[in-house]
């Protein structure tokens, strides 16, 4: 596939790696803030091909993982109602809520459906005018425009039996929270490319300046990750801290103006709790008052939720980059993708799931054979 295959070329990967090896003189800790990037890194063994002093810390870049437990419990409560068809991306079904997950709600008779796109949920609403169709609107800035457009379309087409349970999160406030944490070891960020495809790069120079950290907008193929690391390390070695775009084929500095306009119309910024981390000011979006009729939280008043996290799960530390997944005692023993304790073991973007899937069962495992950059 064009735009994928050529960015997995092993000869070019070797050139990038050689350049990084010849640049690095001392230890550096870089954080990627996107679960898609975490998977590329672990799948191709990129962290193990980098010079020893360069450490990749996996940040809170998995939207499924950071969706607060309270919202998951609300989703299950709404999905259990007989009049509701609850639509969600597949990743959310097995995320542990308090005592159960959406999959169990379905097994108990709830009408829970997996959709590829929020527009599929809108279609289901049109086809079932006597039912209430609720879409679970979670995700980062990449997913917010599709969900915003879907609510906008619902209003335009007067589809009144559709609503959105919203728990959107934004990357820049999370970067700020990480830099302010007293335990912070992060010296530079690989910014999530597709978030920037939508938002552009305007939010990042102030952060790079305030915390004196290089921020490099990075794509998702192996060569993209290596180029992100190469540019970051180069800046660190020179004592620079600028924002660079290493994913120019898909990121314009101004982002996508029509998506930004729609976000502005449909959502408003709000404080948001991140699962395992806590409340981060201004880090989320909720539906703006103009769209309140389409807000599932208002349509279905859900009360009496008492959340409880499993005591064994240390996903909060994993999400903050304080713990590698395979350093957790439950990893691969009491916690597996089949029987997950935390969301990081469930989602296709969770760091624990990536470590498990690519058999990173201990920290000394070599890269897998056949890895395109090995």
């Amino acid at each position, binding site marked *: *596939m*064009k*735009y*994928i295959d*050529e*960015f997995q*070329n092993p000869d*070019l990967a070797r*050139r*990038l790696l*050689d*350049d990084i*090896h*010849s640049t690095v*003189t001392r230890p550096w800790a870089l954080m990627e803030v*996107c*679960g*898609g990037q975490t998977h590329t890194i672990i799948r191709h063994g990129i962290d193990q091909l980098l*010079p020893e002093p360069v450490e990749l810390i996996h940040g809170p870049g998995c*939207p*499924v993982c950071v969706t607060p437990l309270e919202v998951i419990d609300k989703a299950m409560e709404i999905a259990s109602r007989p009049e509701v068809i609850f639509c969600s*991306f*597949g*990743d*959310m079904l097995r995320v542990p809520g308090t005592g159960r997950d959406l999959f169990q709600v379905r097994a108990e008779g709830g009408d829970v459906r997996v959709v*590829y*796109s*929020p*527009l*599929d949920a809108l279609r289901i609403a049109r086809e079932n005018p006597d039912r209430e169709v609720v879409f679970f609107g*979670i*995700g*980062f800035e*990449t*997913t917010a*425009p*599709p969900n915003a*457009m879907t609510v906008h*379309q619902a209003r*335009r*087409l007067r589809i009144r039996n559709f609503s959105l349970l919203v728990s959107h999160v934004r990357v820049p406030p999370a970067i700020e929270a990480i830099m302010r944490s007293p335990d912070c070891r992060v010296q530079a960020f690989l910014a999530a490319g*597709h978030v920037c*495809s*939508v938002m552009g790069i305007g939010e990042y120079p102030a952060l790079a300046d305030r915390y004196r950290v290089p921020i490099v907008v990075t794509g*998702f193929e192996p*060569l993209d990750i290596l*180029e992100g690391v190469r540019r970051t390390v180069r800046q660190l070695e020179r004592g620079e801290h600028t924002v660079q775009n*290493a994913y*120019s*084929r*898909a*990121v*314009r500095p101004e982002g*996508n103006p*029509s*998506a930004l306009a*729609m976000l502005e119309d449909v959502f408003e910024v709000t404080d948001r709790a991140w699962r395992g981390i806590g409340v981060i000011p201004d880090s989320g979006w909720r539906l703006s008052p103009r769209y309140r009729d389409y807000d599932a939280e208002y349509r279905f008043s859900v009360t009496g939720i008492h959340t409880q996290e499993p005591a064994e799960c240390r996903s909060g530390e994993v999400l903050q980059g304080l713990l590698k997944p395979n350093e957790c005692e439950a990893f691969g023993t009491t916690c597996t993708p089949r029987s997950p304790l935390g969301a990081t073991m469930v*989602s*296709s*973007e969770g760091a624990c799931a990536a470590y498990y899937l690519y058999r990173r069962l201990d920290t000394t495992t070599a890269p897998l054979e056949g890895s395109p950059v090995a």
Partner: protein
Amino acid sequence: MCLAVPGKVMDIELRDGTRMATVDFGGVVKEVCLEYLPDLQVGEYAIVHVGFALQRLDEQSARQTLDLFATLGMLQEEFADPWELAAEAGGAPWPDGSGAPQEVQK
């Protein structure tokens, strides 16, 4: 969930007042909403996420990026000690018995 992938626009039609495209993802074909890229044309590539085209892929930028990668290490090849390069290519130990190529280059 928030993975976005490149796809090629095969055809475009208006449905319920919304611009929709058929997009090919290397064999898998999906319906994609073009409202956020209203001027995207048949034959162009875009980053697609959960049924929405979010950004056009720029061929010239992609080419420049790959060209840059290809030039990395060229100065090294041009000016480095040919004996070292030959030894590195053949995986042989260094003549003076010192360790890895990276350490020698530093």
